[in-house]
């Protein structure tokens, strides 16, 4: 069953609120084991990277062969700039400018 976008946002917010609020009710004074905390972190990183790849290189279930090289180069630049400047926004802006220039050139 498919539901409206507003409903999805409302359910998503409710789930986020539950995750935030539950520890305030049940986990007061407790700590997660270190290994579980790491697993959550790695899953989170893996999801983020998968989303980067799918958003950047795919449209409607198809691989965007023509645009992929320039986007990959811009992504690499964004990573290098963000890493060296320690600023995610600077990296994003650098990559954005490069991909824009490349799209105008080709």
């Amino acid at each position, binding site marked *: 069953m498919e539901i409206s976008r507003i409903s999805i946002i409302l359910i998503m917010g409710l789930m986020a609120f539950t995750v935030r609020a539950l520890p305030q009710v049940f986990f007061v004074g407790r700590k997660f084991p270190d290994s579980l905390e790491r697993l959550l972190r790695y*899953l989170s990183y893996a999801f983020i990277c998968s989303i980067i790849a799918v958003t950047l290189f795919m449209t409607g279930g198809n691989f965007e062969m023509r645009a992929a090289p320039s986007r990959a180069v811009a992504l690499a630049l964004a990573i290098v700039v963000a*890493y060296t400047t320690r600023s995610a926004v600077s990296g994003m802006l650098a990559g954005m400018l490069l991909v824009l220039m490349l799209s105008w050139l080709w």
Partner: protein
Amino acid sequence: MRFALRFRQGMKAAIPIWIAFVPSSLAWGIAAQAHGMKFEEVVLMSAWVYSGPAQFAVLGPLAEGKSSLQVLVAGFLMNLRFLPMSTALAPYFHGVGRLPLLLSSHVVSASSFIVPYLQFQKERQHAAEDPGFDEATEGYGNLAFFLGVGGSSFLVWVIGSAFGYAIALGFPAGFDEALKFILPGYFAGLLAVEMRGWAMPVVCLAALVAAVPGALASPGWGWLLTASLVGVLVWGLEQWKFRASALS
């Protein structure tokens, strides 16, 4: 009086977060507009979900009308990171009523967690040397500080998103590639800034490479499956390495 003072202290401590939130929230608003979201959806999502990474994560699938279950699972998994953050803050709100705790937990975010958490740790160390320290009273003071950080950052995020949406409406044609890059570029930047150790780069690279074949095999769930596999495998490898080094 003390509550107001602590709230103001929290707001002052949150200024760097506001500065970081302005471009991020603008970027989210612009990206959401570029993905065809409506203004009210953008504001509602920023105010009710209030989670930059999760909002960016579900933007593509949501705009493309992908399975609602897929969007919800992705969003939920992204927001699981709030669990340990909220858990870590909980002991500092000793003595605070359940309702204020529940309401204020809405503004728990990565940024609004780190600043109060470090501040509370520092204050607790000082309090250990103070015989007149009352933990029950301090719980409300800590909550005020947390709300000063979290509440003000929340407002910056929501208002910034709305502005970003309005700015994007004025973007001329031909900027599609740049707008499409905002979401993955911002994510990549966030990860690059946080990059440390060996496991994180391995997780990121493997997930990045495996996602497209996964999505080609199954557009809905393929990338979620490959990401889960990568996360669990690297974690398992790390656990195995820990055990091996403990034995040797």
